[in-house]
């Protein structure tokens, strides 16, 4: 800055320079963020992973009181042909007793078929209760051995550290004997 420059010119000069600096920094920051994003986004599920999004299951062979486990998106999905007692038990529960209140009605399309993702909502273990010899927990549904969460005959959390009910995936009955999950 020359010594003959007036004070106001100096301030003017600095303001203009500040503007240039800040706009350069701003453009640089936005540009960097845009350049970084693809390197983060590449970690998200890839197109082929997303493409495996639905599974068709034949349910005609499942007797009343039996369950099967199928794989959907790499996760186990529990399909249970519920007994009338189980349905009655699930419907009779007072919502005030539930940590994650949901009616049984809201969790099934046909009361005899309970379809849900078999992944414990605590830390992702697979609850036991699919096989006849498995422990079913205090509420006759499923029991997670990792940290002791108990689920009822509607797959709702009743006791233990898990915060939520076992999630119900999107599905539809394509015929009386087949269901399309996803």
């Amino acid at each position, binding site marked *: 800055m020359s010594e003959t420059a007036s004070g106001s010119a100096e301030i003017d000069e600095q303001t203009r320079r500040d503007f240039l600096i800040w706009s350069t920094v701003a453009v640089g920051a936005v540009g960097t963020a845009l350049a970084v994003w693809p390197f*983060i986004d590449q*970690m*998200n*599920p*890839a197109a082929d*992973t997303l493409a495996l999004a639905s599974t068709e299951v034949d349910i005609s062979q499942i007797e009343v009181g039996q369950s099967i*486990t199928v*794989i959907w*998106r*790499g*996760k*186990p999905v529990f399909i249970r042909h519920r007994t009338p007692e189980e349905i009655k038990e699930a419907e009779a529960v007072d919502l005030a007793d539930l940590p994650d209140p949901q009616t049984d009605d809201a969790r099934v399309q046909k009361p005899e078929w309970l379809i849900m993702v078999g992944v414990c909502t*605590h*830390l*992702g*273990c*697979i609850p036991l209760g699919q096989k006849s010899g498995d422990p079913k927990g205090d509420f006759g549904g499923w029991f*997670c*051995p*990792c*940290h*002791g969460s108990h689920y009822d005959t509607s797959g709702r959390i009743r006791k233990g*550290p898990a*915060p939520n009910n076992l999630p119900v995936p999107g599905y539809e009955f394509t015929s009386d004997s087949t269901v399309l999950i996803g």
Partner: protein
Amino acid sequence: MSGGTSNFQSNSRVVNWIEHRLPVFSFLDSQLHQYPTPKNLNYFWNFGSLAGIVLVIMIVSGITLAMSYTPHTDLAFDSVERIMRDVNSGWLIRYIHMNGASIFFIVVYIHIFRGLYYGSYKAPREILWMIGIFILLAMMATAFMGYVLPWGQMSFWGATVITNLFSAIPLVGDWIVQLLWGGFVVGNPTLNRFFSLHYLLPFVIVGLVFLHLWALHMHHSNNPTGVEIKDEKKDTIPFHPYYTIKDMYGLGLMLIFFAFFIFFAPNYFGHPDNYIMADPLVTPPHIVPEWYFLPFYAILRAFTSDYWVYQIVSLGGWLMSAKLAGVIAMFASILVLLLLPWLDRSRVRSAKYRPLYRFFFWVFAIDCVILGWVGGLPPEGVLVTIGQWSTFWYFFHIIIIVPVVGILERPKPLPDSIAASVTSAPQAAE
């Protein structure tokens, strides 16, 4: 770096030619040879250099393992078995790498507790200490991802449980978990990225170790008296040959200990379940992390909805879920150590002259062992209560006891200097 006044001289023309262009010889001479080191260091000061050597062993064994390992969910487990059975010396290299992780944590935990006992984290070594904490965090991340690579049952379910921790974060939790997985479950994309990062992080640790040493060499090693170097001539001896030979002796002992596990108990630190290939549909009945994570796992699990500490910090459950509180507590248990240089108000470093602090130091050490013990057992009955009280004590010690003891305690008289402490009893020096 301080202490860098090297009087390095050489008659070799080649050495002098290089030295003139890149002063690497005088640098090594000042930092490793003439480097003034307190003359009274005990064997607990071996563990820093031991950790450095284990890091090198881990990198060399890891790079060679990577030459025969396949990071694919269908092939990983078999490729590890092939290393064990068919690759020349593969069994040896894998057992070195597996047990090396445990040895690394043993050495580093002793190194950390030495720092806690002798007050090595206090001014002017705060940044040195903080870099050390970051090294610990990087080591934990590396070890966690390395354990996933053999793709056994514990690999898979350990990865599932730990990555699911992030789902506790409000709003973005599920998105973060999916980002970590690269899918809807722990799967092939997860294994691939863990392998990539497991290979990268040790070199990040090398960089952090360099910063750690740089900070160390600014003010030199602390020592058992905690009294600073006052007269370099009287208080210190050159690092080489005095401490190189002392470190070599300790290294010999450590390698014997290490070799015992490699050759006679190679799976002692492991879990039999990890010799079963990962099955996404079957959870093992009892999932436990590796032993070096157990105290932190115990802190994570201590937070149940009826834990009184949780009730307080979450304002009666209103602020956050018990799951989130547990996750925060687990990370906080390490991050809180970053504040230790400022929480400790005492101007005396060494616990040798701090009777009250020394007592609480040992209570804290026992508390950490109890946490580790509880963390390895199923959370049932009285173990839950023990884990919860130990968790409480862990934080109570660091946040309350350390500052209060620092203010209330009357330390014993310090020796005038390091030299005085070794030539006569501290009382005489007073």
